[in-house]
């Protein structure tokens, strides 16, 4: 059975495509402005395979970048919780860096690191890192007084226990943030590829744009949507399984 997220995406995609075609036939536009269903199917047959590989390539980088961001955000948030000053400094820095549009920073990254995997990974990680970091700092620096009080007053509190308590108590929030940032990781990777990489679906979209080929872009968007939905479904499933397991213990 199709997961809710996937059929929701399929419905939205179908509506979008339907509107485009309605516009095409309503305004009598050429295939250059909006491709015909025939052309879309033809493009799908020709480019579906390579584009699917490109989406998988992008997805792999996005997942890696996402994992990297989660690990980094956890480490920084755990450090940031030590004192209010460090926490507030990191938060301010994160807000400031987040304010820079990635399209402005990306060229510098590509110049420094080249247009290979590293740059794509770094940009994907950067785009989803800061929202994650801000949420993680919020979670890890906010005491759960009614639980921590006992351990504090009996001298049993360790930093590991504190992190465990705060993570456990906010597991739903953390899961939601992680799932939410997954889309950003995917978007970040595509943007990175669009700007400068030589692989991935973002790069394919760039070439399609050079060629003003909307049919290719529609096929790419479809595959990106399905790929992203599948990733989100997997994350939600993992998050739910984790929460269920913790509750049933």
């Amino acid at each position: 059975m199709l997961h809710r997220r996937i059929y929701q995406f399929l419905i939205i995609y179908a509506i979008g495509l339907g509107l485009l075609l309605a516009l095409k036939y309503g305004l009598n536009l050429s295939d250059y402005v909006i491709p015909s269903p025939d052309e879309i199917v033809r493009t799908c047959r020709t480019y579906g395979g390579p584009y699917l590989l490109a989406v998988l390539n992008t997805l792999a980088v996005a997942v890696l970048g996402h994992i990297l961001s989660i690990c980094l955000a956890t480490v920084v948030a755990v450090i940031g919780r030590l004192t209010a000053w460090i926490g507030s400094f990191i938060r301010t820095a994160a807000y400031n860096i987040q304010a820079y549009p990635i399209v402005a920073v990306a060229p510098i990254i590509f110049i420094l690191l080249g247009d290979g995997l590293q740059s794509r990974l770094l940009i994907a990680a950067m785009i989803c890192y800061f929202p994650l970091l801000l949420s993680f700092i919020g979670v890890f620096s906010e005491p759960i007084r009614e639980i921590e009080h006992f351990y504090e007053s009996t001298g049993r509190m360790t930093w590991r226990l504190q992190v465990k308590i705060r993570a456990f108590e906010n597991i739903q929030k953390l899961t939601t943030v992680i799932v939410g940032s997954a889309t950003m990781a995917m978007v970040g990777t595509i943007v990175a590829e669009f700007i400068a990489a030589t692989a991935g679906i973002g790069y394919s979209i760039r070439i399609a744009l050079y060629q003003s080929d909307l049919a290719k872009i529609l096929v790419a968007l479809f595959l990106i949507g399905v790929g992203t939905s599948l990733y989100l479904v997997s994350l939600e499933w993992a998050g739910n399984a984790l929460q269920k397991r913790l509750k049933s213990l």
Partner: protein
Amino acid sequence: MPIEGRHISYRYPNAAGEVFADLNFRMDGPGFHALFGPSGVGKTTLAKMLSGTIRGFEGTIADDGVRRVLYTYNLERLPGWSNVRAHFEEIAPLAGRRRMEELIETFGMEANVGSRFHRLSLGQQNRANLIRYLLQDFDLLIMDESLANVDEFTREKIILKVKILFPDRCFLYISHNVAEVAKFCSQVLVLRSRSRSPQLVAVQGCDHRESAESDPGLLERAMLEIVHAA
């Protein structure tokens, strides 16, 4: 080990008025004492001063011989990643395992310790929380509404057992139940509003114990005294 507070004055940062002005009190030695008073007079504040959570107040608290003060309140929770027994075992010294079982039985928690904390009723949660404090090393345990939502019969059973199990420790029981504090507590420190002087009055309670017969007349007198003082 008397605990004596002298000329205590305190105002919360950025607060308009003082909570205490020249507050004096004395709690004599081990036993089951109470801190009683209407809401908002500063019972929790005084408890936190005793436990060292609030510092920077004027005056002194002399507590020679009191090494360790613990403060527990009724909203505390146990982490949810394991059941209540596992938590107890984690924080109870091996030598104290017998006492742990004894407390579980007295507190009527045998059937519940296998559950996660969040699955317990409010009364059961408060009992579970109190058990883990009683398994710690302390000289003074401040119990802020720690038996709230526990039925009267179980409460009585718990208090009487605690008196037997911990004869050499000092307890400060914060409650709004006049009859309860009058019956079971040795000294009842009645804390009053800031406008009244003195702000704290000590009343002698009945200090009822398991083996002793209770005297209804004495209890009535103590209750009246507490109500008048408040």
